[in-house]
């Protein structure tokens, strides 16, 4: 690795080249900062002050205690799962290259195999944590999923991950074979392109969906889409009732593939029409503010430096062109991803807040929004005001308390 002393020696030995490198790095940093600034933009008024909402006023103390217990277990389980993930990958980085003997493929094929086996070991190590989460959700009647079904489902998902890892390593190692240590400069944009393609086509990967049939909701979607300047957006229903009782919705795709997907658990009668309108408006808000594309933009801002760091860290194993570097690359990439997770959560929370604001602007129905957020909390047992560490690490949405506070801020702003 390039230490400060060597950097200084390099600067003294070749000042012109070093200055040029520094300038390129500065230019890159500036471009990164400008891009991040542009992506950071939000339509939520910058001066908006959220009032302090006391969860004890909106929720019973027994619920607060129950939801807190529920989330604490899942948070700790997830944290242990991630520590296990890191531990497995550290061990794999040390001795995973020995599995090269199991390959008759060339360097790229062997690298793909090592990549897949790395995630296979991670999957094996994480099975108990997944089962523990299922057990906890079943115990609290949030999930109906069976243990065997859960393992089989995650095993099949692992197949998808294998395909993704193979593709990514195939691209990176092929480029590294030509460009050596500069592979990341080409591979990272390719990954971003693939992510863009994946975001565009993601609607076709959502299972168990069908077109929304309910006339009232269809009419609401049509009306709200016009209000939010995304006319013609289609809505679909995803069947999840057999697996969970938790309500949810999502927006996927962009351009001609953009869709709002409502879970059938949202339309089972527990939520009023006005509450479903708020959910729909929230998802349309994501589409209206191009959050899918923004996510890809943020991914690019993460991937380019991350790939450069991976390139740097794999040099001791001969660079990513060599299959023996793959276990190290996996560890480096996953570690960077875990480190970046809190930052990505900040971005996600900002997008969600903008979608909430957009929903309020479209529906002008703060009471329905408040009622929705309360019900979301009670039906999913999510704590309205989780502990800070959990919020920082896992909070990809504002807390329920923050969301209710935003509704109140919106009301206050309207009344002024």
């Amino acid at each position, binding site marked *: 690795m390039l230490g400060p002393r060597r950097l200084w020696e390099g600067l003294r030995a070749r000042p012109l080249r070093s200055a040029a490198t520094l300038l390129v790095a500065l230019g890159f940093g500036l471009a990164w900062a400008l891009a991040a600034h542009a992506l950071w933009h939000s339509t939520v008024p910058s001066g908006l002050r959220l009032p302090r909402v006391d969860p004890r006023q909106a929720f019973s103390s027994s619920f607060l205690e129950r939801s807190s217990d529920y989330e604490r277990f899942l948070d700790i389980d997830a944290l242990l799962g991630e520590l296990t993930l890191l531990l497995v990958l550290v061990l794999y980085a040390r001795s995973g290259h020995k*599995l090269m*003997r*199991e*390959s*008759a*493929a*060339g360097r*790229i*094929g*062997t690298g*793909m*195999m090592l990549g*897949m*086996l790395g995630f*296979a*070991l991670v999957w094996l190590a994480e099975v108990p944590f997944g089962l523990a989460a299922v057990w906890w959700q079943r115990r609290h009647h949030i999930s109906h999923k069976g243990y065997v079904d859960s393992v089989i489902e995650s*095993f099949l998902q*692992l*197949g998808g991950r*294998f*395909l993704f890892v*193979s*593709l990514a390593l*195939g691209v990176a190692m092929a480029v590294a074979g030509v460009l050596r240590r500069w592979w990341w400069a080409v591979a990272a944009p390719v990954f971003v392109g693939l992510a863009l393609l994946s975001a565009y086509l993601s609607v076709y990967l959502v299972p168990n969906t069908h077109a929304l049939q309910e006339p009232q909701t269809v009419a609401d979607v049509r009306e709200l889409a016009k209000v939010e300047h995304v006319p013609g957006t289609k809505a679909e229903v995803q069947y999840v009732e057999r697996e969970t009782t938790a309500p949810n919705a999502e927006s996927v795709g962009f351009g001609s593939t953009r869709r709002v997907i409502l879970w059938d658990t949202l339309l089972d009668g527990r939520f009023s029409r006005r509450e479903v309108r708020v959910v729909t408006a929230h998802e349309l808000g994501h589409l209206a503010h191009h959050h899918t594309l923004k996510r890809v933009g943020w991914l690019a801002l993460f991937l380019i430096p991350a790939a450069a760091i991976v390139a740097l860290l794999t040099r001791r194993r001969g660079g990513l062109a060599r299959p023996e570097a793959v276990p190290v690359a996996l560890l480096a990439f996953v570690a960077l991803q875990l480190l970046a997770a809190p930052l990505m959560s900040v971005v996600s929370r900002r997008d969600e807040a903008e979608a909430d604001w957009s929903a309020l602007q479209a529906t002008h129905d703060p009471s329905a929004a408040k009622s929705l957020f309360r019900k979301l909390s009670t039906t999913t047992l999510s704590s309205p005001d989780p502990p800070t560490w959990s919020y920082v690490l896992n909070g990809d949405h504002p807390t329920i308390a923050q969301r209710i506070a935003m509704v109140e801020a919106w009301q206050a702003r309207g009344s002024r």
Partner: protein
Amino acid sequence: MPVSEHPVRLSVSDDLVRERVTVFFRALLAIPHFIWLALWGIVVLLAAIVNWLATLILGRSPQPLHDFLAAYVKYATQFYAYWQLAADPYPRFDGRAGYPVDVTIPPPVRQSRWTVAFRGILLLPALLLATAIVGGPSGISSITRGGNYSGNFGLLHLAALLGWFAILARGAMPRGLRDAAAYALSYGAQFWAYAFLLTERYPNSDPQAALAELPSRSDPIHLEVGGDLRRSRLTVFFRGLLAIPHLVWLQLWGILALLASIVNWFATLFTGRSPAWLHRFLSAYLRYQFHVYAFLYLIGNPFPGFAGRAGSYPIEALIAERERQNRWKTGFRLILVLPALLLAGVYGSLASLVAVLAWFSSLARARMPLGLRNAGALALRYHAQVLGYVLLLTDTYPYSGPVRDAAAAAEQPAIAGAPAPAGEPSGSDAPGADQPAASTLPELGLS
């Protein structure tokens, strides 16, 4: 003529010549035997239960019961050989020795009471394999019930069906089909001998061990079996998922191969030989497909490459250089290949079952049973020959029977010749049983 080191040995002294009239009416001629087999089968069922209890108590099968059951297995094998066209003369009704396809069953020996007690459970993997090699469950059970062949087609039945047409046309049973049938008969005899406690040795699915005299052929597409039997438990457990990128790549390549094969058909039809570049491209595709399925079905251990490079995989489909091809055979290739496709379907079932059984066995022992490996290799070799025939890489028709494989032949004496300890099913597919010579494979330079 002893043909295998398994104590239950099949011997074949058949000249392949068949009388067309008896073949045409074979099923009808077999009716008296069906009736006799069924009647005898009822008694055998009762005798088998008594034998089980007696062996469990005494530790060895009583001689009269053993002889009675052995005679039945011999008779059933002879009758099946006749009915399924593996032999020509009308068989006797007593299973006496001397029939062109005959089975030798050793005298009773001491058996482990544990394996006797759980024989019904231990039999299950072999039963699964028998469904592919001999026929479906109803086909197998009919050996005791007699008749009722509405069951699934196995290798034995399909070889007989195809052989029926071939004999009517040529007056002789093709060697490949006869050997395929004999392989199935050998496995069937070993299966029933194991089920009736006539032996403690597990049925051996290895086609190299089933028949003593296998032809050494040099087909334009043939197999080179290398590599050891060691399997990594990790890659075995995730084998199906690890193959996903290959299967996707194979599909994409397959689209191009389909288009290329159409061009190849026209080119071969007009010029009489396949263009060199198409031959290379389609050969690489065939090799790649072979590597992927060898990996997926656990016939091979290492993760294969993505290019189908020759010599890159321990189990290799060797493809000859392009040669002049008969234009008639080229023109009607898709019709000519139909019988081979039927047989390829049966071999495909065999390969799938081998994969399932080998998955459990390799996970438990980190080693692929030799018998299963060679049975899978036979299935894959046939599949490769059929695909090569379809892709016009050769106009030599796929050879349906097992052939002597140089590497496997080198392995076989080491496996079969090793003295098996009492109760150790050496050279077989016994779950949990180790093959004595398997550990010597790397030393033999086969790794």
